[in-house]
């Protein structure tokens, strides 16, 4: 059996300023297995994988690779040991081509570009990856970027590939393709460690699952012996299965006043004659595959994007036509947009939580503010940290130091501080752990109960069904179907999104 173990950690402990990120964790990875690591944010999954990938070193404990003790001090050393890590935010150079990215770090003194392209083409074909080696990485979709990352790992002869939230930014079809890729790597004898918050993925894809909680290993077992409820219980130490996607809606909220009307909105090539309405006191779920124009439609509504200059359609806010060219007037008119890409658009990661939240408020001031009151910033920050249960050392903590779920809460607080009437949540629980998902869902429901018009854009059908009172399905740039939450089924929604 021990021959089968490609990588193992024994009594692995990593302390940050005396606080254990992982504590006495035993972990082993078999050759050619897919091993899922699951746990709430802050459970220690990332730290554990970073130890394997040489990003951080253990405070105590040992790591062996192929039975030999190893302690990689850098990712380069880990790579030389055959361990590669594919990060959630991929590490490719967007301005370089696929081939250049593949061979990055392996350049010779004289490089013949044509030779690199040919080698890359042959290599990508051997992996059955449909990516053009001459394509610039920046223009590739999330799935193709991930393919390039995987290809790079395989090229470096990795025998262990670690994926951190690999499917967070993928569409359902891309996820399916990604799963096939991972299974193909497994057939080639590559061992896979992947972190995922989507528990179904772990159950479907993994051979074994390890659950971490508060830096400690709770359980490792064959995936077949787990079900969703058992994983969730192990992760959070309490049963959340009936509060998270588990129970079908029995009633829906009645529509209040029509807050938003979009008529024949156009923004080539993504939004094509889109029309929809959003009502107060209801959660309107918007489902669609990537490219369906959901995000773009609501970014136009909130002034982040502009509609077509000629015949771009109409947007009415409380029956008054509006055309926001930048987000600030939209905020002042009561529209808040909670971005899907929190790390790029959601916050300033090196600024404190309180400052980030206060920044949301500043857009409500028509002429800005020359001076900020530190006391006011901290008071508002503290209030929202308390209200949304943001887990942090204090309101002076930097956002970059928070877990994904808590970062998302900061982004939400930054929007709610604007006291909006219409709140648009774009993928509100992407890359967020189970415990935080429940809290965010509770918050969204509370907002609707308070009479706010709430829009939830999500690619995850169970989330749409669990939250929404009415469900709009978007396809090819416009809303093509509407369901009441009472009549909607996953099949109906997916059918409308595809056909």
């Amino acid at each position, binding site marked *: 059996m021990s021959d089968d173990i490609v990588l193992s950690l024994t009594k692995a402990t990593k302390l940050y300023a005396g606080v254990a990120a992982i504590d006495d964790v035993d972990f082993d990875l078999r050759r050619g297995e897919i091993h899922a690591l699951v746990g709430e944010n802050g459970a220690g999954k990332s730290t554990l994988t970073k130890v394997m990938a040489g990003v951080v070193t253990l405070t105590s404990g040992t790591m062996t690779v192929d039975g030999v003790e190893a302690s990689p001090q850098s990712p380069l050393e880990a790579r030389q040991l055959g361990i590669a890590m594919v990060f959630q935010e991929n590490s490719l150079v967007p301005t370089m081509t696929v081939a250049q990215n593949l061979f990055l770090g392996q350049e010779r003194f004289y490089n013949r570009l044509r030779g690199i392209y040919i080698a890359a083409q042959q290599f990508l074909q051997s992996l059955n990856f449909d990516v053009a080696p001459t394509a610039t990485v920046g223009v590739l979709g999330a799935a193709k970027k991930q393919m390039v990352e995987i290809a790079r790992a395989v090229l470096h002869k990795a025998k262990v590939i670690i994926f951190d939230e690999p499917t967070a930014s993928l569409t359902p079809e891309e996820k399916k393709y990604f799963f096939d890729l991972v299974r193909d790597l497994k057939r080639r004898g590559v061992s896979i460690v992947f972190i995922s918050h989507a528990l179904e993925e772990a159950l479907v894809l993994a051979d074994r699952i390890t659950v971490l909680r508060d830096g400690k290993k709770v359980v490792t077992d064959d995936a077949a012996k787990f079900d969703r409820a058992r994983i969730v219980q192990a992760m959070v130490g309490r049963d959340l299965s009936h509060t998270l996607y588990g129970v079908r809606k029995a009633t829906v909220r*009645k*529509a209040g*006043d*029509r807050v938003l*009307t979009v*008529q*024949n909105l156009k923004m080539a090539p993504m939004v094509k004659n889109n*029309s*929809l*309405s959003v*009502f107060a006191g209801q959660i309107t779920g918007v489902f669609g595959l990537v490219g369906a124009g959901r995000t773009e439609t609501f970014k136009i509504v909130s002034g982040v994007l502009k509609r077509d*200059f*000629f*015949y*771009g*359609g*109409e947007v*009415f806010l409380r*029956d008054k*036509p509006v*055309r926001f060219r930048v987000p600030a007037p939209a905020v002042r008119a009561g529209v808040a947009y909670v971005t899907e890409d929190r790390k790029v658009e959601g916050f300033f990661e090196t600024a404190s939580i309180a400052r980030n939240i206060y920044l949301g408020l500043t857009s409500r001031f028509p002429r800005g503010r020359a001076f900020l009151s530190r006391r006011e910033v901290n008071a508002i920050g503290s209030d929202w940290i308390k209200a949304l249960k943001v887990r942090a050392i204090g309101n002076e903590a930097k956002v970059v130091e928070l877990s994904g779920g808590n970062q998302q809460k900061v982004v939400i607080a930054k929007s709610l501080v604007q006291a909006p009437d219409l709140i648009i949540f774009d993928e509100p629980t992407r890359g967020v752990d189970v415990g935080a998902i429940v809290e965010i869902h509770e918050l969204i429901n509370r907002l609707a109960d308070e009479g706010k018009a709430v829009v939830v854009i999500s690619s995850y059908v169970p989330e749409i069904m669990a939250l929404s009172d*009415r469900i*709009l399905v978007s396809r*090819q740039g416009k*809303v093509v179907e*509407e369901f*009441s939450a009472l009549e909607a089924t996953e099949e109906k929604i997916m059918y409308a999104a*595809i*056909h």
Partner: protein
Amino acid sequence: MIGVRDFANRLLGRGDAAIAVPTFDGALKPNQKLEAADIVLECAAPEDLATDGRSIYVADGPRLLKLDGDVAAEARRFDRPISALAVLPDGGLAVALAGREIRIYLEPSAPKPYAVFASGLNAVNTLAPAPGGTLVATDGSMTYAVEDWTRDLLERQRSGRLLVLDPATGAAKTLAAGLGFAFGACATGDEVLVSESWMHRLIAIRRDGTMRIVLPHLPVYPSRLSRASGGGYWLTAFVARTLLVEFVLRERTYRKRMMAEIDPEYWIVPRLRSGLSFKEPLQGAHIKTMGVIKPWAPPRSYGLVIRLDAAGAPLYSLHSRVGGTNHGVVAAVECDNSLVMIAKGPGRILRLPVGPLNQEFGA
């Protein structure tokens, strides 16, 4: 300044020139409820409905029919077609004939009217009782006759009026003028709810003539209103708005030529029924989606009844969509837990039980 803005809007396709139509969503989400309605009666030219709480009165051309259950009998006949009908709280009957004359009878069978209003009326299409023994009437257009409503739409007329009539004194007062085809009124408190078809909205006009918008941006041309049991109203809509018609309404020269040169039957305008001739515009098309050809056609005719709450907000709606037949709904009244409607397109009186509808839609 307005001219510059109009020019800019026309150039950029904004404001009125956006040619944007609201979508049927929320409470207006389409269904086929009207197609499932029972057909109570087929008539040659049904126009309006009224009820005394026991029976339904149907205006069918010059005939006044009394409908008890499923049995219809001619109650009386007039010399001209009836364009509006109302049963008064005291059991009296008010009729508008050809839109140009309003007669008020003490009872439906009374031989002679006790009050007649004939001066300055042109296209009276609604009569409804109002407080203090008065009557409200909508005169759809001062320019064209009742049956010539398509011309009124194409010329973008705004000559509709809301009138208050006092049968006791014979006084007629214009409460509001310049309305975009007033078609439907219902007096409530010190206000009168009026549907303004060409403006696609429901407005409330107070006794002093001031106005507020109750329900704007409808995706249809609204028509008559009636009270619903348990509070609120039934609002009918005789046709849906389409991008093509909205576009034609922006093109003055085109409309002028079309009206001068084309048979009115084939104008690009909404109709109360469609699919009768291959020469009709908007009769069909297809779109290719994901490699699959799908049938598609903007509705030239449509049927819709909207249940409104007491504040005028839609609760649910009953539709007859493209491909259906019960189009051109111009009147709906609730009587004995049933909703009785006129689908003028096919000339049908329809009936749907209200209880199951309220239950299904949670109203």
